[in-house]
């Protein structure tokens, strides 16, 4: 995987808008003017909505200039930060190619994609990950909302779309760190007893890399993906011994679909979502976890009273039996 880097410091360009809708026809009524306005400006529109909503929108405005973001894979749906990192990567490819874009996202609990808490985490993470990208994203929530989700939706969006489609500054908007302090990222689904465990100090990171490299080879990853995954785990483990208390614990699981590592330390995390945004070149630190997020299929950070925990996952290549 090749990760492109930009060394140009960009101003804040991400416009994150929230709004509510009562029925699907109301949602379409809110979305259509946004799409028409984008088209007039020559900006592509990306839809992250239910298939039935997309069909209704296409019936009204046609399919021209409409792109679609596929829903997150089931294994990512409990990690809002991973969904946001993935979305940021997809949108960056698009903005690099097309310039400014408009995104319309639909939140409907009945779709069963992201639960309320994960949606809040995704939106807060988007505010960090997309900061410098020329993206105008409107997230439309189906009313009535769960009270906590309703409050968090207003915290996460600096701009709010009224019922008549007008856009206003949102006085309830809060910084992502504040949102995540109130609604912290949760622990992912437990994996059961680990296949392998290893405690490590800074001087044993080489043993940790050896163990992860061996597991990556056993998982059948190609050399490049194995090296990338070892690098990702090393970055997280290096942070664990630097910001923890000098020791960390690595756990590994090999399943038919993926290789999973967790790194645990007893330290306290200063930044609730590290590595969501590429640091400015002048910033000497903070690049490791950003790169690790680009190299993994899932990287989820959470904290609890025991300390800081990170799960990293990479998919195994599917074995296609030789027809001969």
């Amino acid at each position: 995987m090749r990760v492109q880097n930009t060394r140009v410091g960009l101003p804040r360009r991400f416009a994150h808008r929230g709004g509510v809708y009562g029925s699907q026809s109301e949602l379409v009524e809110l979305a259509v003017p946004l799409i028409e306005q984008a088209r007039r400006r020559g900006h592509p529109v990306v839809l992250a909505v239910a298939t039935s909503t997309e069909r209704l929108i296409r019936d009204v405005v046609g399919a021209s200039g409409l792109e679609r973001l596929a829903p997150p894979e089931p294994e990512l749906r409990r990690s809002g930060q991973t969904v946001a990192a993935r979305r940021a990567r997809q949108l960056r490819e698009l903005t690099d190619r097309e310039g400014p874009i408009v995104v319309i996202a639909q939140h409907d609990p009945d779709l069963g994609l992201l639960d309320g808490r994960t949606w809040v985490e995704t939106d807060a993470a988007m505010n960090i990950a997309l900061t410098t990208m020329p993206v105008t994203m409107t997230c439309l929530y189906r009313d009535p909302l769960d009270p906590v989700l309703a409050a968090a939706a207003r915290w996460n969006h600096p701009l709010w779309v009224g019922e008549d489609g007008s856009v206003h500054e949102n006085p309830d908007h809060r910084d992502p760190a504040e949102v995540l302090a109130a609604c912290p990222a949760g622990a992912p689904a437990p994996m059961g007893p680990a296949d392998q465990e290893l405690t490590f100090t800074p001087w044993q990171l080489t043993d940790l890399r050896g163990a992860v490299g061996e597991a990556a080879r056993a998982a059948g990853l190609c050399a490049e993906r194995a090296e990338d995954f070892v690098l990702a785990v090393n970055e997280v483990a290096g942070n664990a011994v630097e910001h923890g208390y000098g020791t960390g614990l690595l756990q590994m699981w090999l399943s038919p679909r993926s290789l999973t590592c967790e790194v645990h330390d007893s330290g306290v995390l200063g930044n609730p979502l590290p590595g969501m945004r590429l640091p400015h070149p002048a910033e000497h630190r903070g690049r490791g976890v950003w790169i690790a997020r680009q190299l993994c299929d899932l990287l989820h950070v959470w904290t609890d009273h025991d300390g800081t925990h990170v799960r990293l996952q990479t998919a195994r290549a599917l074995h296609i039996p030789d027809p001969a």
Partner: protein
Amino acid sequence: MSLTKTVAQIAPGDHACAVVDSDEQHWEVAAGYVSAGLIQREKVVYFDGERTVEPLLRRLREADVDVDRAVDTGQLVVLPPDTAESSRERAAEAVRNQVRESIEDALRQGYHAVRLTDEPAAAGRSPAHRLGELDRMIHEVVRDRPVTMLCQYDRRYWSSSDLHQLGELHPVEVIAPALYDDGLLRVTRKAPFSTRVCGEIDFSNRDLVRRMIDDELERALRATRGSGEVAVHLESLRFADVTAVAEFVQAADGFPASHRLVLYGVQPSVRRLLDRCGAAFSPQLEIRDRPSR
């Protein structure tokens, strides 16, 4: 009293010893010794004792040695661990015969000289006096023959008095000085303003990298003559973490316009990371293939 030489200075007829402090140093000495023999068209016999020979073969490949060809043509012979292991336990007479046969075979095959070496001997497997006995017997075999022999001892496993005793048996002592060696990372000087970095850089030792580059720049700036190039050879750098690689880029960014940081022989994994850390946007950083030998 031994004569000290570098690996490059060892010549046919030398019976040398090297005391190594780390695996990286062993691979450096052994790879230098083996590749010099291959270049000089000598037969090289490597007794692969307690460890695996693979890291040495990797190190030779990193130094651009065509290992596969040398093995295929029989110029490089690696005696597998069980052979070497059992030979240690056999009577000294049998070992002497084995060495003698290896030498006679090589000369019959038309090689003008033979190089012998093995893995660093660790204490505990053979006591110093037994190794000493063996060494004296082998010395008798190789004396007055076109044979070079290098015995390696790992300092971590021997007492000073044992090392002194073993060193006395060798007319030549090989020295391989390092600017830095912590067992994981080894930095040596190749030439003025040119260093070689081998091993792995991570949280435990990465502060050194920036310091080393800064020191080299300082020396280069004070030198009246020079190309303005601070060279770092990374052929044997097998791992570097993000901060270490970012340090290379940031160090180059801080160079004056008259100087540049040139990285040679960068491994693909480190190269990808350099790209991710914005190396392409640093005008004072150059990444080149290894210089021609």
